[in-house]
């Protein structure tokens, strides 16, 4: 073969190879972009779900805290016997009043 032909053939093959490589790169890039888009969408959905869940949890806990928080005055906690803010302290003398059965 003539050297010019071989050179042209090699150039043609090289171009063909380049073309295939470029196509593969485009496909890879598209695939990558698609994957990133999917991951991004999933991340947004997960994030949004997290925000909603956190909101619901905050509401629920807040509601629970309001329902079971320390009552003012002598309002009774419906769910349990209410322990004193502090235990009795030792006193002296005969006391101002007497607690005994009647």
């Amino acid at each position, binding site marked *: 073969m003539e050297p010019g032909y071989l050179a042209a053939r090699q150039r043609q093959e090289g171009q063909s190879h380049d073309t295939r490589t470029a196509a593969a790169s485009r496909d890879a890039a598209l695939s990558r972009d698609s994957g990133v888009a999917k991951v991004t969408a999933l991340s947004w959905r997960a994030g949004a779900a997290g925000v909603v869940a956190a909101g619901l949890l905050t509401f629920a806990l807040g509601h629970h805290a309001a329902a079971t928080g320390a009552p003012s*005055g*002598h309002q*009774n906690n419906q769910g349990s016997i*209410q322990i004193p803010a502090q*235990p009795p302290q030792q006193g002296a003398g005969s006391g101002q009043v007497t*607690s005994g059965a009647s």
Partner: protein
Amino acid sequence: LVTTGAIASDTFEVFGTTAVLLVTRSSAIGQARGTANRLLAEVDLACSRFRPDSELSRLNAAGGEPVSISATFAKLLAAALRAARLTGGDVDPTCGRALAGLGYDRDFAELRATGDAPARLMGPVGPVPGWTRVRLDRGGRRVRLEHGAQLDLGATAKAWAADKCADQIADEVDCGVLVSLGGDVAVAGQPPPDGWEIRVTDDHAAPEWAAGQTVTISSGGLATSSTTVRTWTLGGRQVHHIIDPSTGEPARSCWRTVSVAAGTCIDANTASTAAIVRGPAALDWLHDIGLPARLVRHDGTVETTAGWPYNDPGDAA
């Protein structure tokens, strides 16, 4: 009326027992007494077992039919049912028939004056019907008693009234208040600098030299239940008013007296009454809940729970 320093006191009779009212601003004692009179009259009309015109008497006589009730009686009944629920039924408001069967069907002073009371019903009535037989529609203010249940709110009404009086008086007169109804003590508002001093003993009417212990509290309530005070004889045997719902009979307790401090007087009284009924198991129960309590055995030895102050042996019951 008595005034000591800034603290004024008023002592009067109510519910067949002695009430003591203390306020930390002496000029407020008159208004405080007026508020107490009004609230206590409401409670008496709602739930006295010995007044034929009380709502409780009408309900007990209704033969299981639904009865419309006042807001006050609805609250008292709800408090009694809550006490029953929180104690697993050890403090049960459906012990009215059991008490009447033991002869306690009239004012206690009259019962005691009778001497040896006859059993008016058919003798032991067995387990009480149980608090779940009380159908309370609190919103609709209607109630119905099932299976022949008869109510007695003696275990909770006095303590509920003490809480209510203390709260309302403190709101109105804006000072520290102590209300004691037959030894069921509730405090509210700003207490004295060293707290309220309370002598704890078997009998709320005991003289000041009687064996016991003096403690101070600054909030909440303190109540004492005992098998030694409200007693009478029935067919020659001594009985008392704390009913064990599982038998319908006076509780056979290892404790003669139990005092409890709690966030409210009604919770203190609920726990002290339940402790008498529970007997030895009360120690662990009170400890697990975290309620400071003083429990006195029949021989006078004392047990304490959950931070109740050390009891000087020389001051033992």
